């Protein structure tokens, strides 16, 4: 792990985020650790309320400080502690070193300024002295908006959803970020458009050698984009590892159940095993293992004692008391 830590562009150590104060404080993210290296795509998977977006927003301290506090842990970007940065340094970090692409392009764009104006603004703030018109053209072409002159003059509402999201990606790239945080960037788009926008995102990620944290609830997308995957449930990372390993031999019962709950396009129509119950909210995370009320393998210990993070040497880790036995049981079942 040590060498990976030294090289990591982003390193999050034992991060906890809470909303509210005193005995009404609710810990939404609880002890999350991970890293993203330059040029690497890491997927963060989870359902609504799992804490994935809060984790993402805290990376550049975008959460409103009046209501959300980083209650523990540290975030290192290129070796510097983000929590200790001055406002001045934070302004440089946001949009310059770390850029975001969110789900709703219309919410990320200002409706009363043209696309060109909004991209030039980023260039003016983060890359003074550059030939802005040439760079604007380069950025729009890089995201597949080839009709540069027309798009630059357009206002957000004059573009389709797919074009808007491409414009947002161009804006995110304008500051030459080293880390791109993409929070459900294609969820609001139609499938065919989703595939195009995803290709654009991966193309520019490779071309610029950026690190990317890709947040999604769609396991199919994970297989397509990420080298590594982190699975979040109820504010904690419950499983992590290479995408192939996690999707092929999931260790945590939640990951296993999630994979079985998704209907497949090919193959027979075997009955889906839904996960019983509902995703718990942060104010009433269950005691012990947070997944135990919904877990098919739960035993008495699961409701009493919270499982610790069980990492096996490399980047693979799981938060479950019984994952080894469950894995052996599955092997036996298969034979």
């Amino acid at each position: 792990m040590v060498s990976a830590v030294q090289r990591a562009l982003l390193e999050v150590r034992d991060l906890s985020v809470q909303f509210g104060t005193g005995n009404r404080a609710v810990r939404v993210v609880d002890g999350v650790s991970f890293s993203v290296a330059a040029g690497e795509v890491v997927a963060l998977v989870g359902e609504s309320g799992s804490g994935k977006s809060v984790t993402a927003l805290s990376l550049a301290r975008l959460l409103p400080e009046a209501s959300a506090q980083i209650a523990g842990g540290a975030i290192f970007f290129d070796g510097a502690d983000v929590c200790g940065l001055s406002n001045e340094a934070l302004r440089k970090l946001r949009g310059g070193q770390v850029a975001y692409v969110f789900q709703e392009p219309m919410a990320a764009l200002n409706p009363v300024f043209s696309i060109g104006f909004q991209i030039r603004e980023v260039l003016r703030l983060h890359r003074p002295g550059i030939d802005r018109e040439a760079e604007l053209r380069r950025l729009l072409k890089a995201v597949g908006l080839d009709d540069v002159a027309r798009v630059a003059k357009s206002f957000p509402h004059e573009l389709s959803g797919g074009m808007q999201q491409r414009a947002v990606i161009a804006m995110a790239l304008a500051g030459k970020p080293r880390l791109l945080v993409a929070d459900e960037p294609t969820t609001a788009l139609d499938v065919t458009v989703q595939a195009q926008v995803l290709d654009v995102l991966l193309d520019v990620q490779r071309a610029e050698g950026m690190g990317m944290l890709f947040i999604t609830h769609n396991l199919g997308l994970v297989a397509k984009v990420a080298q590594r995957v982190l699975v979040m449930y109820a504010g904690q990372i419950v499983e992590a590892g290479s995408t192939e390993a996690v999707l092929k031999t999931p260790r945590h019962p939640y990951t296993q159940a999630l994979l079985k709950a998704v209907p497949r396009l090919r193959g027979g129509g075997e009955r889906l095993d839904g996960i019983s119950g509902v995703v718990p909210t942060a104010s009433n995370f269950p005691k012990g293992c947070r997944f135990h009320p919904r877990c098919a393998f739960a035993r008495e210990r699961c409701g009493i004692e919270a499982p610790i993070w069980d990492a096996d040497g490399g980047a693979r880790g799981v938060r479950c008391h019984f994952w080894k036995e469950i894995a052996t049981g599955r092997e036996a079942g298969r034979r």
Partner: protein
Amino acid sequence: MNSPLIDVRGVCVEFNRRAQCVKALDDVRLAISRGESVGLVGESGSGKTTLARVLLGLQTPTSGDVFLEGRSIGAWLRNERAAFRRRVQMVFQDPYGSLNPRLSVGSALAEVLRVHGLASRAEESGAVAGLLNTVGLDAAYAERYPHEFSGGQRQRIGIARALATQPEVLIADEPVSALDVSVQAQVLNLLRDLQRERGLTLLLIAHDLAAVRYVCDRVVVLFGGRVVEEGRADRVLENPEHPYTRSLLAAVPEI
């Protein structure tokens, strides 16, 4: 030869926006037999929801007509509106927006029974409990209000409300797209079981092709207001013929 339960004959729907005319549906022909489950797929703007609205009698076609048991929807609405509403029911996409927040779940379900004269006062609570059980909810939930439920539970309540009239046709417009992944399977299983056990005629509108394949016998692909391909679900999704269906399938990221 069975005549189809629902027969969509050359339906066009045009919307006039200023000087422009938008063709939302363009000569759609579709026959659905009793007890069949049909998936309607296509991207936003393809006309899926407009077609659902036409089938529900909420949108009058510009030309063409839809027949239920050989009688046009216009005639049903003029002569036997209540009977038509009983027979064709709808499950909406947004489980948060489709329930009255000020009615307990029990009163919301009882209201449907009362409006359609399907249960006497004395029978009401028993019928409500039965409906809740059908969709896998505890009968005690009748006392609770919509905000006390999760999205998946609300969608079950939406399905129970639609089932209250014992419909023959159930139209579900993106019933799981607003739900968490772990909960989607529960609702898809419920729809599939209801359709099979009760012989419901189900029209499932969805952009999730895998979900459609899981629930439906037949798939209809809409593009730009036209039916571009239709056939058995496994055939269409394994060997798509129309280039649009192919591009739709190619775009789905698979695990």
